[in-house]
């Protein structure tokens, strides 16, 4: 167990090289507005800080150290070039409100990225600003609402969401003031069209879909769904979480979606950073064009500039103070340029090949795919329900034991539709060798479950922490250190 930085702090110790040079002590801050006691912050030397955080980093699994088949998260290799180039000093030094003449190079990159995202999704326009998928979803739903309102269609207050959807979908719809209605899924993984037909009506604002769905299969009746919803006067929202599966092979714009978001930190391989920053650009068809959030990058002649509220009076406006996660966008741009038109479809091809291979081999090893008759998209679900019934070993235990074998665990218990599920997404950047090693580990753990289930119940055994008590954490919240 590492000590906390506060526990290695000593009164008066500091990283002296970081203190600014003394300036005149001039101040006009009145006494009653001044801070009385110094805040308790770490008091350490520079070496202490470097050693502490270097040491902590080594306690993480990460793409750079481990296979990370975390379904719905698209944990693929984050090119080091993207990091280096996004951190070129002139990019880092740009002030967000500086005159556009001082950031023509950056704006050119962002404009190119807008264009590439349009091309690969089949949408009419793209706004890069949303800071993450959920903010993109919010923006998308807010545009749907703005569209209906602009038409005076104010009774459309219900958003349809499949029961297998990401939790952000209903949460985003609720933030836009919508009621949420769930649409069930059929046993083959496709949406229940009959239920959908019954659900739509004059109250329908739209439907939010992920395709391929969170069940790891392509929604085959997407054109029928689009017709049903559009005929009822609703719009279609595309959750881009799984775009990696069809990149360059099929485009949401061609499927009838009116608005989409992309997770650049998934499909365009920007780093997850231990929980962000991401980037969730939104794209729209012609109908929603006026409502796109700001800012956008416009090219006028040879010059680029930001379009803001003034240029876009019908916009749903800005969702962050400035232009969103520009540094993330630069990384995505570098990635997209490196792949180019040949490379982008290959992402979908090899992600799909890896997922199907892994599903097949696991099935051969005795695991039960949730949708054995379907093609896997870039991910697939295995259910451990039988094992749980027979031996009492749960998906969670399986997940924890995988950590001991040097593999990050798959997503577990999502989607909630499938009991005791593991949602497995290998991504295109992992080799067959790695997949084979993972399959071996899964098979071994299965045997362990049968011969010595405690090995799984108590897992992990080999990490810096043993099984952590999450219940205690929630019941007795300890959310900060106190001396």
């Amino acid at each position, binding site marked *: 167990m590492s000590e906390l930085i506060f526990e290695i702090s000593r009164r008066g110790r500091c990283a002296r090289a*970081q203190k600014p040079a003394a*300036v005149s002590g001039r101040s006009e801050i009145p006494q009653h507005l001044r801070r009385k006691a110094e*805040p308790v912050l770490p008091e350490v030397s520079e070496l202490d800080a470097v050693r502490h955080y270097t040491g902590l980093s080594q306690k993480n699994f990460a793409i750079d150290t481990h296979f990370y088949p975390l379904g719905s998260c698209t944990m693929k290799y984050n090119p080091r070039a993207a990091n280096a180039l996004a951190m070129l000093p002139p990019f880092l030094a740009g002030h967000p409100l500086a005159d556009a003449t001082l950031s023509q190079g*950056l704006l050119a990159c962002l404009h190119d990225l807008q264009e590439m995202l349009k091309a690969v999704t089949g949408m009419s326009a793209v706004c890069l600003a949303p800071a993450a998928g959920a903010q993109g979803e919010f923006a998308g739903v807010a545009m749907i609402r703005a569209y209906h309102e602009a038409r005076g269609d104010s009774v459309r207050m219900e958003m349809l969401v499949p029961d297998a959807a990401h939790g952000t979908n209903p949460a985003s719809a609720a933030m836009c*003031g919508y009621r949420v209605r769930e649409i069930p899924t059929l046993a083959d993984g496709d949406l229940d069209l009959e239920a959908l037909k019954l659900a739509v009506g004059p109250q329908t604002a739209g439907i939010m879909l992920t395709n391929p769905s969170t069940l790891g299969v392509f929604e085959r009746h997407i054109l029928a769904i689009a017709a049903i919803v559009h005929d009822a006067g609703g719009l279609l929202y595309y959750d881009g979480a799984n775009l990696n599966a069809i990149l360059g092979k*099929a485009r949401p714009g061609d499927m009838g979606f009116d608005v989409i978001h992309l997770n650049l930190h998934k499909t365009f391989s920007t780093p997850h950073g231990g*929980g962000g920053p991401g980037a969730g650009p939104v794209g729209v068809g012609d109908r929603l064009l006026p409502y796109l959030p700001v800012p956008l990058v416009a090219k006028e002649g040879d010059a680029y500039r930001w379009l803001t509220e003034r240029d876009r009076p019908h916009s749903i406006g800005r969702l962050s103070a400035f232009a969103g996660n520009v540094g993330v966008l630069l990384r995505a741009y570098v990635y997209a*340029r490196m792949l180019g038109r040949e490379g982008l479809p290959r992402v979908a091809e090899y992600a799909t090949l890896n997922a199907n291979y892994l599903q097949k081999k696991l099935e051969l090893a005795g695991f039960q795919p949730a949708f054995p008759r379907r093609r896997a998209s870039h991910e697939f679900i295995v259910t451990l329900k039988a094992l749980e019934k027979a031996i009492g070993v749960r998906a969670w235990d399986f997940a924890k034991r995988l950590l001991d074998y040097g593999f990050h665990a798959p997503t577990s218990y999502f989607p909630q539709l499938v009991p005791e599920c593991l949602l497995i997404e290998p991504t295109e950047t992992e080799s067959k060798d790695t997949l084979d090693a993972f399959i071996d580990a899964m098979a071994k753990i299965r045997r362990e479950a049968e011969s010595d289930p405690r090995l799984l119940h108590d897992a992990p055994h080999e990490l810096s922490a043993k099984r952590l008590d999450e219940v*205690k954490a*929630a019941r007795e919240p300890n959310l900060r250190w106190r001396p």
Partner: protein
Amino acid sequence: MPFIPHTEEDVAQMLATLGVPGIEALFDEIPAELRCGDLPGIPAGLNEMQVARLLAERAAQDKTSQCFAGAGAYEHHIPAAVWQIATRGEFYSAYTPYQAEASQGTLQVLYEYQTMMANLMAMEVSNASLYDGASALAEAVLMAVRANPKSASKRVLMPRTVHPAYRRVVRNIVRNQGIELPELPYDPATGATSLEALAAYRGGDVAALVIPQPNFFGVLEDVDALTDWAAANGALAIAVVNPTAMALLKPPGEWGGRGADIACGEGQPLGIPLCSGGPYFGFLCCRMEHVRQMPGRIVGATTDSEGRRGFVLTLQAREQHIRRSKATSNICTNQGLMVTAAAIYLSLLGAAGLSDVAAACHGNTLALLEGLTALPGVERRFGAPLFHEAVVTLPVDAAELLKLLARDGIVGGVALGGDYPELGSRALLVCATETKTRGDMDAYVDAVATLLRG
């Protein structure tokens, strides 16, 4: 094939396992009419050497020589250690720490960050970040409406001295939830929120009052009075503050008689590069009693099966992946890596260092102001004390002056006429942080003087 490791032999074996003739067959569930062909809008791929050159050329076009703009994004020195460590693969390429045992590095950093931020704000708890300062304020407004048991209204008072972009963002985000955001005017002499304007709301049902410190003009608000007004009127007090300033200024938890209820703001000053606007991070702190209304990830300490301390994401019942449409927010991915950088930054600075930075910013801005107002026709606009920004009135159009300064790579400040028409087109917001030397400020004043003469 960049980033795809498959050899021909691998592919052949994998296809054989699947019993399909080629990869294309794996897409056979996609209706044929939906399959797209080439991607004409997308250029051919570049190798790393080529893309590196392209980006270097683009970067070379962008040359900020000196920056005197603030307005919510501040140039500070960032210790080299911060990003050399934050971009280590183990932090950079990890996911949100759902598997706690395999993520103790990130989790401990977040727990330390929460402690630092709570201490800096003198608040009880902090979350593990939101997208940026503006969206943090929006979440704070939503949270306050949920958390205020005394108020049936959804009315949140918003001073006009709050960053104009923040006010827009709040409006855009809460618009569809029936929340009212009446604006409070400022005293045109001092630049601080007018306490008189609050009189109209006394006794009315107000869910919360937003209190910026310093405000958008750089001016210090009378936070004690504003916080006490909120307490007296059953409203929660939402502080939106600059974190650097809090090393020097009274922190939200100590405002007025009982402190602010929620404190939020932009974390960028704590070790995050300007980078034309992002990625930054929003912070949000509150009283423990409101923690279950808090949006975003929260890390808690717990024990492992051997009784040793460890860290996990906790109170997840608030979040969208559990609670779906009933969640406190839709936020999922937040700004973890930025917070990692901020924790390293705060560790290297410490309270004394941060306070020195704040003092240097304050002193430099006063010095800059002295230099500028010595020029004919340049005047300080507001009388109240300021922190590290100031509004000056110029004898010329501010936007035009900025365009001319930009020719030399100088970001000369931010023109205020658009957002505050009442201040006129000659109002300029300037900022000098600890990165500015006497010589820098003199050069800036000289450049302005030359343009004013010319």
